[in-house]
């Protein structure tokens, strides 16, 4: 991003209720913070026109595919800045990834900011610049937005909502219902980095380490995968609830058994260490840049080769296989062969994972 130095001139201070009043203060905030960042390359005509809505040429969209994908997500992460990312980066990657998991090419994002009065404008600027930088990286434009300021205590510093649209190319048909017996299960790298980084960044537990969030856009990786294997069966990013939750969703939707091998799961030593200390299970830790793919076995090796060549998939690996339901576990479920040679069911989590002493 070409953040030009003149930007620094805007009044540094804190957000007040005036910034949400619709008056001059708000207009100035929009111009000097949001438009300045999101149109920093002067290539965002939809936003620059400052209409109440962004407008698109349908014909241009139609050239890229035959279906529109549309999604939304809200971001309330605490703390706002954490090792490897911040709420702004997360707000863009999260929505971009949700689109990408349907095989869509993400194009446009909206953003809604709910700001607690008293937030330093400098903090907001940092977040907004990070959003723009991530948007550039992911090849999407942030084309419309909204700002609300709420009284102290009505929200925690800053909440962001983003919605996004993308286009799905003809012939791509990815769904959690599509897993078939024999399919290979693939992951694009280390598990649990984001969850571990957040646990740590909250600081209550006073653990020192160098774990960084894996927060990254996955749309380019998915396009590379589709190029060699248009027939990807299932695709989901393993965010809240981690790998275990996604696999359970696939098993349920496709009525099959997802069988993974514990020794194949890529988990960093440090993440493992943190899990040992706190009694957490890395299978349930959140990720923000990890996708789980179920693909025809014949295409698996080819896909792994392509993925490992991609920045977002260096440590891609096959972690298991889809099996038809059979005794002794005849309900859709996730079965893990432990490093110890036995098998156990990996169920969904009941509530939030809490550190344990016993």
């Amino acid at each position, binding site marked *: 991003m070409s953040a030009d130095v003149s930007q620094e001139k805007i009044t540094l201070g804190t957000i007040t209720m005036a910034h949400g009043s619709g008056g001059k203060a708000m207009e100035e905030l929009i111009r000097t913070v949001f438009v300045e960042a999101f149109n920093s390359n002067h290539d965002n005509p939809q936003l620059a026109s400052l209409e109440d809505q962004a407008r698109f040429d349908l014909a241009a969209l139609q050239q890229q595919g035959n279906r529109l994908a549309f999604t939304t997500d809200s971001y309330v992460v605490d703390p706002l800045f954490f090792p490897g990312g911040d709420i702004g980066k997360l707000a863009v990657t999260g929505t971009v990834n949700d689109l990408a998991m349907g095989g869509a090419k993400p194009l446009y994002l909206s953003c809604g900011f709910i700001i607690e009065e008293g937030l330093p404008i400098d903090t907001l600027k940092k977040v907004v610049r990070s959003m723009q930088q991530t948007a550039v990286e992911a090849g999407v434009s942030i084309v419309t937005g909204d700002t609300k300021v709420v009284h102290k205590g009505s929200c925690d510093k800053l909440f962001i909502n983003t919605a996004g649209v993308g286009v799905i190319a003809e012939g791509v048909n990815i769904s959690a219902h599509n897993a078939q017996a024999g399919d290979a299960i693939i992951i694009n790298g280390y598990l649990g980095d984001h969850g571990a980084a957040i646990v740590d960044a909250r600081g*209550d*537990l*006073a*653990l020192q380490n160098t774990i960084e969030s894996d927060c990254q856009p996955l749309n380019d990786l998915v396009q590379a995968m589709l190029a060699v294997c248009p027939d990807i069966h299932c695709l989901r990013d393993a965010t809240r609830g981690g790998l275990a939750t996604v696999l359970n969703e696939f098993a349920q939707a496709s009525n099959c058994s997802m069988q993974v091998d514990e020794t194949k799961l890529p988990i960093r030593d440090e993440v493992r260490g943190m899990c*040992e*200390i*706190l*009694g957490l299970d890395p299978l349930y830790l959140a990720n923000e840049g990890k996708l789980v793919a179920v693909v025809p076995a014949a295409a698996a090796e080819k896909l792994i080769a392509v993925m490992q060549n991609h920045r977002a998939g260096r440590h891609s690996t096959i972690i298991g296989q889809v099996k038809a339901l059979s005794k*002794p*576990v*005849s*309900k859709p*479920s996730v079965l893990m062969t*432990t*490093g*110890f*040679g*036995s*098998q*156990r*069911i990996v*169920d969904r989590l*009941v*509530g939030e994972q*809490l*550190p*344990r*002493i*016993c």
Partner: protein
Amino acid sequence: MKYVDEFRDPDTARKLVQQIQRLTDSIMAKRAEAGYTMPLQLMEFCGGHTHTIFRYGIEQLLPDTIELVHGPGCPVCVLPRGRVDDAVALASRPEVIFTTFGDAMRVPGSQKSLLQAKADGADIRMVYSPLDALKLAKENPEREVIFFALGFETTMPSTALTLLQAERQGITNFSLFCNHITTVPTIDAILGDPDMILDGFLAPGHVSMVIGEEPFQFVAKEFHKPLVITGFEPLDILQSLTMVLLQINEGRTEVENQYKRVVQKQGNSPGQQAIETVFEIRDFFELRGLGSVDHSGVRIRDAYARYDAERKFPLSLTGGGITVTDPAGCQCGDVLKGLIRPWQCTQFGEQCTPQTPMGALMVSSEGACAAYYQYSDVQELKLKRSHQKESVSA
């Protein structure tokens, strides 16, 4: 040596399992001669062992003639409802920052859990160590920081030493809500039950690390049951099972120590001293699922009364002796004694699930019922239960 991976080797496990099979065959053959065919009932007392057993699928590696009985050794699970109510009352006071280990947050009281109290506005913080709670007290001199002290002897030295440190540093806005419980009276209560049918014990390794081997001698001497102090990796469990079976096969009843890399015969004396200095035995304490057990809890000595939340805020509390009974239909006590398996409880998977725990054993992931729920096919287990009922009524 990393002290972890070495004790998770699948090849060694396979061989140990064969050994266990051979020993059980031999024991069962002898028993059959005596006209006695009941499977061997071996109890792992400690919730940490239960966790390892489920996490590594150890039960399914064992012969059918061994049944593992998952004991009450999860201090979070056996926390009685009245005490949780007290904790919620303390936490809800405006001046209080209530600090707790994470897994105690979900335990239901008769009204609500700490997690719900937090949602209702109580200032409740999760900490990793009692020292973190003390640090909060230092940082917030205008607030009262209470630490929810719970756990068996393993955890007692940590809270005792934290209290002593508070005293040394002259910190006065810090107190403990003491719910520590003791292992020996609890095991004694289980063994003393006339319905008891256990054949041997895996004893808690980390409790032993503090109190040593000696306090467990009564199990071998008075109750004539084999007992092996056990570590927490899967090979530790298998090796200890082998050691218990060897004792049974040879007709010995002894206290043996499988976990010598951590547990010294005499335990940890600075830890024992800290316990002795700060705590004294209560006449009785309630354990959820087992009811009131004599001498099973400790309280803070008079000399440290100013660090005792129960005495600092007496009005709000039920006093630790008043029992809030468990819901009707809960069969935790029978499960704890090994009389029924968790899935044989009629509430299992029906009224009682991890989302809506009725009994103690469904509360923490260490609890036997919660572990069965999480790690097995609940539908299958329910089917099995109804088949059993049919065959009983037929």
